[in-house]
């Protein structure tokens, strides 16, 4: 049991772009591909990864209990880990629901993630939104970073900010996941394209995930969408990203708008400016 895995932080700057959904799906996907994965929720006070994974009722101890200075309160790290029953390769280390985001230090985070790499191939850290203490904690132990953004001006701006901050603290070459892309809006020139965002952020692309209502449905149920027997395009995109993380060369999904037919074309003709 000395795998010496990778610690990868999943971050975005802006909230609500799909960081936690991405974390849950990539964790589940990598685990389904035979890797031992632990998801670390670094969003203190606003933990949600347990809910997205459907593990909320099984939280007993949190990362804070494993770090307690008081020996009688302290639990072992493996006691705080929740093993997923659907996917035995996957575990979750829940965040504490305390409001105090400075409850743990970057050094403590570093030692926890380092300890986890001894038994897991992938330690995925779900970073909180923002660039304050919680962000600094989340990136502290990471050797690689994934930046999630959507093709919106505010999300791209914030992504640029966290890319800069991570590079300044030695976390270089983050890779980008462009989430919630709407191909028909790009086609109508009403949304930035993959190329537009890559041109602006100047980082390497890890994957593109189309907007998908299924995300809401699977979140309602607490079942990451990659678990589905008939994966949607977005679920397939997450599975492809997981394979790229394993070093496979997987072509990017071609997110073309389906042929609109004659009437559709006619409408589009009028819509064109």
């Amino acid at each position: 049991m000395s795998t010496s895995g990778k610690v990868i932080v999943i971050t975005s700057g802006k909230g609500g772009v799909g960081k936690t959904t991405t974390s849950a799906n990539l964790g589940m996907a990598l685990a389904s591909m035979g890797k031992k994965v632990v998801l670390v929720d670094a969003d203190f006070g606003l933990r949600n990864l347990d809910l997205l994974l459907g593990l909320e009722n099984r939280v007993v101890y949190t990362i804070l209990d494993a770090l307690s200075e008081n020996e009688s309160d302290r639990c072992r790290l493996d006691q705080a880990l929740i093993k997923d029953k659907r996917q035995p390769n996957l575990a979750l280390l829940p965040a504490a629901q305390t409001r105090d985001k400075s409850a743990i230090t970057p050094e403590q985070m570093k030692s926890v993630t380092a300890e986890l790499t001894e038994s897991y191939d992938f330690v995925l850290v779900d970073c909180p939104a923002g660039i304050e203490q919680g962000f600094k904690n989340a990136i502290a132990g990471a050797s690689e970073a994934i930046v999630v953004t959507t093709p919106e001006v505010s999300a791209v701006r914030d992504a640029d900010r966290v890319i800069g901050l991570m590079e300044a603290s030695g976390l270089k070459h983050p890779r980008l996941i462009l989430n919630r892309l709407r191909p028909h809006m790009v086609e109508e020139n009403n949304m930035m394209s993959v190329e537009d965002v890559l041109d602006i952020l100047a980082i390497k692309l890890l994957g593109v995930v189309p907007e998908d209502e299924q995300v809401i449905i699977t979140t309602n149920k607490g079942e990451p969408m990659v678990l589905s027997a008939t994966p949607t395009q977005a679920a397939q995109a997450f599975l492809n990203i997981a394979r790229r993380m394993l070093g496979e060369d997987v072509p990017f999904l071609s997110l073309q708008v389906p042929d609109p037919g004659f009437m559709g074309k006619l409408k589009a003709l009028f819509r064109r400016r």
Partner: protein
Amino acid sequence: MVFDLLDKLFTRGQPNSRQQACDRLKMVLAYDRTADISSETMENMRREILQVVKRYFELQDDELEVGLERSGSATALIANIPIRRVRPGDDTGAFLATATKLEEKGLSEESSKIKEE
């Protein structure tokens, strides 16, 4: 449908929102990316530049203004360094000495030509 069409007709010719997003982002990021530099870092850089420049030039006074100037999506580092003269240092001194020698040689050749005539 009719309103849609009218709306499109009246907004014709405006840049599309995708392009506007790109342009606005490029502008704001040009600022964001350089907003982080601290005055301490700027001061350190100013002093280092001054040291290098002083090796080659005699300056008006030991003052050097350095600042960031932004225009559109480009940011430039602008330094304003009034100089008095080239410093006759090692390299520049050697270069000047050679140049003078050549000049003298040329002159003497010319003068000898005159004598022959």
